């Protein structure tokens, strides 16, 4: 086994993939279908390679050939339907473990796959020379629900004129959704990609476009791509459409693609990409690894940015013209992210899922460096603070985020994150929110490493990794160097220690191997006699999501004499730290005060405590711990900190702290900051909102005009007529952002009656009235949207008398004015739409607020019309957000249904994902509240959604799981009737008895569980040695619990009904029901029969393929059907094969053997035309020896093959 030479990387597969051809020779936009083939070149690494496992989902496989020989195969996707729907469990614990097991069963990182190909015996019997195998697979995709997304606008004209396009997408490794492959980030190979598309279209894919050739009829052309750099299948992508092509004017090897008519926007938006390139190449001292780069902008994108080898797919909504201010930095950020991931993520790929954090961390880190360079240090620190706050809030609320999970022993019990309702073992079981936080934390930890070893070393490490990878990438496969392109945690840490000579072990242990953040509480006292600052730092490490910190912490103390850094050691039991002060209090001397940055300033020290030389204290100012600090210091100290500390993070902390001190002094400090033009604009913006809150707290003593009004007037209004705003001129972005924010904050002001002051409202209305953008070179759409938001913020609940119906007549006069404006804005938008329809978005929010506050009747119909497919996505999301809110407030079952239907049917994946996300954020009810909405039908519906309705989209499925968790919690939903436990267990006797109260309904399509699988959840069984790895047939290591729970995979029952469903025109689908199940004793003792186990495992292999789009409703079917020809098309094989995840309960298999013998008395009706029940029984005994492959569905025959156990 040559693999062992590869340092650290052990392939889970008995072969090595070296090259893959993907050829898609037809893309039909009308039917949304794709036909093609793949050819994988593999080198076996074992003697007698007899099975090849590949990943494939959704694809319909027509034939498989290995070295020109027809090869039998089976296709089995246990994730299609996680728990068989007859399960009445309905508890999330059960689902999550079943789902994890299903994902594990086909996990390419463990060497598994949905598609198992049997190598024809002629090939593997040839002996031990390890020769090349070429695996050729023909496949098609029909209306794919995942993996590829077709956008086909419903207008007149050819597909190109309509702007129809298709592109690949997915969350993590999802390439298996559109072609068979080894869908692992660690299996690298070179690629040849061919796409034949309509002559009016362009196919953009990974690698170099070698040539484009017309087909013979000249109506189509074939794009030939070659990717010589070894690349993992998940990094392969495709986009086809009538794209407009823009060659980057600065870098001719970079090409940009956008949809028709958007070229001017593309030109503008891409005009700075070369700067990002230059930046990365410079800091990494490494050339961009691929010979070309392509950006494609598509509609209905799954995520804003997704990076693949040598290309990135973006949302078309990132494109903008030069008139747009707010979108510009966002688009630049997205480009920078995409490019960072080209180096780390695409070129260098991860070795395993546990190493994901390294790649996300590095790409996030270098992206951060770009932000620092482009947007400045203030922006960078502001961003870091934001990221830190985000991860801290998330972990404290939801529990820890673990970067580098290890699964020792592979047992489910060792779950490192028991607080979560999902498993973190696979990317595909993660909640999206968790994954976002994971990336955020990974980057922050990378920054912590930088703090520890310096940026120079950090960049040297990256450079080293890239050089290694690029040397490896140019090698031929045989040199076994390719695994150098995979990055593992271990290799990364080793590289760090080699380069820097520093031991970062403790840091890694704290933040990478452990989850949680640190929560500090700080307070201090000044001891005048000793001239010592007595600092107390306590920690909370018992709450969820926290951990204990031991180690150094930096404290910065600003004294009268200057700023001093102290490094304290946080130890187990020491809470108090004495810090000697440098200066005596001597405030009578007039002297400038030196700041940290060397600046010396005059301060008015009158506010200070006369006895203390302390101006302010900061704990961990560099954010070198992932922590939350709650620090207590006097209000004047916060005010000094706000005014004089130059670090924006300190200023922002001071602003949040000042909210608790509504005093004239705080007001003054905030107003000063607001007027301070040198101050970072985001700090000033934050100050606006703080000022509004302080003003409200001081409402009875407030002097002068409403907060910010005079300032705004001075800055933005005409000198002669202060209520009229100047003609817009947004050339100075800082004041533009301030101009946008101030009215929004002002509208939050309240008078003593808790109403928005009349003059504030009039002021905002005047701003709208006199808004004039004609002389401005920038669009004012965001500004106007903010003015509408200001109107929204001014709303207060209506005074309602006897819950009267809201009518036009009793409309409040102020609200009438607001409504006038909103109506006008919304109507004008129809005539002159604004960029990204920002105005409509704001108007919809305003209308919902008006409804919620009882000014206008609460009514969902307007939002429903804006939520429809065909509106701009931002508008839809805003409308849906309003609907979600309506659903919660009005407890409307109809609207909830409407939303859930949209989750199932909407063409845009992003919208479906968003709806579930918003429902989780603003749930109609929660597990702790009672609601009429919570009923059995809803439970069933959501269960179905996550169980089988979302199998085409990992992200959506996890969203559904999240929603289920939010609504019902981990256990059985309380609204369900008491579980009628199918089985009564007697643990002592290890006997289970079918609950006699359950009588399966005959003729109703409800499908009963197999007796052995009902309700024995949680039975603690002895581990079976055989199930742990003897068979190696997709047996997940942790499968024991799963086995007991899974109601799957038992051999055919005599009592089953095979029923042909005639609704499917393409062929029969069969539904099998257990006919009658009378009380049956199940002998738990008979479980462990190793012989039977092995055979069942082998059986699993030999079931026919399952390319079904719908989860087969089959519990179990004919294992032995040598005489049964597979019906005419692959669809049928779906039904014939059941979904046998390999971990399917072996116990149960065995049970059934046992009882089948007893059950012969049971009647069985096979309505299916192939009546072979009798054979079935007869063959039962035979089954263990006979192994049948159903051959290619296309060939329509099945063949017997020698048992694999031979």
């Amino acid at each position, binding site marked *: 086994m040559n693999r062992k030479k590869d340092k650290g990387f052990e392939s889970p597969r008995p072969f090595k993939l070296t090259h893959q051809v993907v050829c898609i020779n037809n893309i039909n936009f009308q039917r949304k279908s794709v036909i093609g083939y793949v050819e994988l070149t593999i080198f076996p690494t074992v003697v007698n390679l007899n099975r090849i496992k590949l990943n494939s989902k959704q694809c319909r496989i027509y034939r498989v050939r290995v070295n020109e020989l027809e090869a039998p195969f089976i296709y089995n996707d246990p994730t299609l339907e996680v728990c068989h729907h007859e399960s009445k469990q309905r508890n999330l614990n059960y689902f999550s473990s079943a789902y994890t097991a299903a994902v594990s069963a086909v996990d390419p990182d463990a060497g598994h796959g949905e598609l198992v190909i049997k190598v024809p015996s002629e090939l593997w019997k040839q002996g031990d020379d390890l020769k090349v195998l070429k695996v050729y697979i023909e496949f098609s995709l029909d209306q794919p629900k995942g993996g590829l997304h077709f956008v086909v606008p419903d207008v007149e004209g050819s597909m190109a004129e309509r702007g129809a396009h298709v592109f690949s997408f997915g969350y993590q490794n999802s390439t298996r959704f559109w072609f068979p492959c080894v869908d692992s980030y660690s299996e690298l190979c070179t690629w040849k990609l061919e796409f034949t598309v309509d002559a009016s279209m362009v196919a953009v894919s990974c690698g170099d476009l070698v040539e484009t050739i*017309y087909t013979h009829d000249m109506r189509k052309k074939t794009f030939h791509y070659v990717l010589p750099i070894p690349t993992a299948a998940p990094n392969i992508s495709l986009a086809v459409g009538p794209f*407009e092509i823009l060659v980057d004017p600065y870098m001719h090897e970079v090409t940009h693609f956008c949809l028709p008519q958007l070229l001017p926007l593309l*030109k503008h938006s891409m005009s700075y990409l070369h700067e990002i390139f230059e930046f990365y190449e410079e800091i990494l001292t490494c050339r961009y690894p691929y010979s070309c780069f392509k950006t494609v902008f598509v509609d209905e994108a799954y995520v804003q940015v997704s990076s693949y080898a040598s290309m990135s797919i973006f949302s078309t909504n990132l494109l903008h013209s030069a008139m747009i201010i707010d979108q510009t930095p966002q688009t630049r950020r997205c480009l920078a992210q995409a490019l960072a991931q080209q180096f780390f993520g695409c070129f260098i790929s991860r070795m395993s899922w546990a190493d994901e954090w390294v790649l996300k961390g590095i790409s996030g880190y270098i992206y951060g460096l770009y932000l620092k360079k482009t947007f400045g240090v203030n922006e960078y620190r502001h961003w870091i603070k934001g990221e830190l706050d985000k991860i801290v809030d998330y972990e404290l609320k939801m529990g820890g985020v673990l970067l580098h999970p290890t699964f020792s022993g592979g047992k489910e019990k060792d779950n490192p994150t028991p607080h979560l309702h999902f498993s973190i073992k696979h990317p595909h079981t993660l909640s999206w929110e968790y994954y976002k936080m994971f990336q955020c934390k990974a980057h922050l930890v990378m920054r912590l490493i930088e703090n520890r070893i310096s940026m120079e070393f950090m960049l040297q490490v990256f450079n080293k990794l890239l050089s290694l990878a690029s040397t490896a990438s140019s090698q031929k496969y045989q040199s076994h160097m390719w695994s150098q392109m995979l990055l593992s945690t271990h290799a990364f840490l080793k590289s760090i220690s080699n380069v820097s000579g520093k031991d970062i072990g403790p840091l890694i242990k704290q933040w990478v191997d452990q989850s949680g953040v640190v929560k500090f509480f700080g307070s201090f006292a000044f001891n005048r006699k000793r001239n010592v600052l007595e600092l107390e730092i306590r920690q909370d490490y018992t709450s969820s999501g926290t951990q204990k910190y031991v180690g150094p912490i930096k404290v910065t103390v600003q004294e009268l004499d200057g700023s001093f850094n102290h490094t304290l050691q946080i130890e187990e039991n020491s809470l108090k730290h004495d810090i000697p002060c440098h200066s005596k209090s001597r405030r009578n001397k007039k002297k400038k005060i030196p700041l940290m940055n060397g600046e010396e300033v005059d301060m008015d020290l009158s506010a200070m405590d006369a006895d203390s030389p302390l101006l302010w204290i900061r704990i961990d100012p560099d954010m070198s711990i992932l922590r939350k600090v709650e620090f207590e210091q006097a209000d004047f100290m916060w005010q000094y900190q706000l005014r004089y500390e130059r670090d924006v993070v300190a200023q922002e902390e001071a602003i949040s702290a000042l909210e608790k001190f509504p005093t004239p002094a705080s007001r003054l400090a905030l107003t000063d900051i607001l007027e301070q033009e040198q101050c970072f604009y985001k700090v000033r913006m934050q100050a606006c909102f703080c000022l509004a809150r302080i003003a409200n707290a001081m409402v009875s003593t407030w002097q002068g005009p409403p907060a910010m009004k005079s300032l705004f007037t001075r800055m933005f209004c005409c000198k002669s007529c202060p209520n009229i705003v100047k003609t817009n001129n947004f050339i100075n972005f800082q004041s533009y952002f301030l101009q946008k924010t101030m009215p929004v904050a002002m509208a939050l002001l309240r008078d003593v009656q808790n109403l928005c002051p009349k003059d504030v409202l009039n002021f905002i209305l005047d701003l709208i009235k006199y808004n004039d953008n004609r002389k401005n070179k920038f669009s004012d759409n965001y500004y106007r949207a903010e003015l509408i938001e200001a109107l929204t913020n001014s709303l207060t609940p209506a005074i309602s008398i006897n819950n009267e119906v809201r009518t*036009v007549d009793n409309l409040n006069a102020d609200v009438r004015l607001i409504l006038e404006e909103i109506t006008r804005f919304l*109507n*004008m938008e129809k*005539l002159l739409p604004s*960029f990204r329809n920002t105005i409509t978005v704001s108007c919809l929010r305003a209308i919902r607020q008006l409804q919620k506050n009882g000014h206008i009747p609460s*009514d969902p119909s307007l939002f429903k019309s804006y939520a*429809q497919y065909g509106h701009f996505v931002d508008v839809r999301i805003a409308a849906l957000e309003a609907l979600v809110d309506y659903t919660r407030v009005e407890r409307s079952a109809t609207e909830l249904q409407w939303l859930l239907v949209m989750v199932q049917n909407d063409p845009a994946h992003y919208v479906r994902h968003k709806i579930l996300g918003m429902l989780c954020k603003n749930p109609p009810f929660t597990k702790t509240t009672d609601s009429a909405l919570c009923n059995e039908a809803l439970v069933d519906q959501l269960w179905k959604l996550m169980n089988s309705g979302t199998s085409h989209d990992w992200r959506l499925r996890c969203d559904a799981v999240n929603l289920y968790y939010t609504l019902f919690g981990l256990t059985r939903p309380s609204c369900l009737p008491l579980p009628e436990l199918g089985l009564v267990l007697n643990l002592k006797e290890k006997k289970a008895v079918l609950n006699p109260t359950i009588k399966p309904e005959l003729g109703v399509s409800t499908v009963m569980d197999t007796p052995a699988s009902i309700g024995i959840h949680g039975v603690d069984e002895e581990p079976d040695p055989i199930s742990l790895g003897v068979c190696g047939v997709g047996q997940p290591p942790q499968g024991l619990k799963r086995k007991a729970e899974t109601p799957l995979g038992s051999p055919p029952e005599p009592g089953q009904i095979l029923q042909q469903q005639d609704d499917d025109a393409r062929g029969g689908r069969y539904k099998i029901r257990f006919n009658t199940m009378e009380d049956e004793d199940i002998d738990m003792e008979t479980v462990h029969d190793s012989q039977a186990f092995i055979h069942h495992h082998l059986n699993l292999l030999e079931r026919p393929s399952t390319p079904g789009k719908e989860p087969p409703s089959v519990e179990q079917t004919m294992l032995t059907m040598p005489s049964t020809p597979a019906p005419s098309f692959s669809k049928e094989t779906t039904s014939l094969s059941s979904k046998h995840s390999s971990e399917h309960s072996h116990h149960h298999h065995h049970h059934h053997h046992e009882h089948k013998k007893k059950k012969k008395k049971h009647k069985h009706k096979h309505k299916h035309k192939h009546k072979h029940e009798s054979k079935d029984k007869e063959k039962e005994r035979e089954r263990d020896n006979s192994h049948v492959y159903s051959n290619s569905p296309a060939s329509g025959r099945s063949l017997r093959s020698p048992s694999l156990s031979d």
Partner: protein
Amino acid sequence: NITRAVMSCGQFRNSKAASSPAENYHLARRRTLQVAVSALLTECGFESAEKAAVETLTEMMQSYITEIGRCAKAYCEHTARSIPTLPDTVVALIEMGFNVDTLPVYAKRSQRMVITAPPVTNSPVTPKALSAGQKRTHPAHIPSHFPEFPDPHTYIKTPIEPVHNPFLRDVERALTRFMAKTGETQSLFKDDITAFPLIAARPSTIPYLSALLPSELELQTLEETDSSEQDDQTDSENTTGNIINDDPGADKENSMLPPSGGVPSTKASEDNVIDNPYLRPVKKPKVRRKK
């Protein structure tokens, strides 16, 4: 009959157009009409007629034709066109109680008299409009006998000095109200659905286009601010400099530039400069030999 109808229209328009400057012309037409009336009379068997009678008949004829023209023009303008077409005239005739079906037979009648063409008189010279700018020549696909382009200012957008309209908001409100009244609406209130009419939300097939592309108005604003604030150099860069401009200094400027119209700039000239696989010509398929 077609010619007659059209002619009548033409006459009507001419008679109106040439009120004072071309009295002669007008009279000549009138005389032709008189001849026509006389011919008709002859056709009907009259040998002579009193002048006053002929005059009266001529007057009636003229009124009738004028009415046809007026009526046809009204129909035409109803459908937002400016030149009446045959169907307009037909409808006009029907409206006036004339059985159009009889017209073809009447036109082909045997005893029809041929009237000589009206004497050539100087047709009234429409005073030449002040022409401004260079007229565009016909592009290759338009035959040269087609009318030439009008003055550029009549169809090419020219910057208008924005006039501050203090009633802009009222205009906007009135416009949106009008739109709301004439189209489908949505309402926020159930008791009075006309109170705050909202133009109904209508899904579009390609929603991102209108949401991303700047509107005409914005583009115009941009052009104006550009022409007033930026120097000419940037304008020329905008049109030509985008593709092969390697001047690093231009970058900053470029980011401020407006998108250059809606027309993708032709890359023909750059093709030989840039070697990008997507710009290369598509190859012809290799001819496969039949076995």
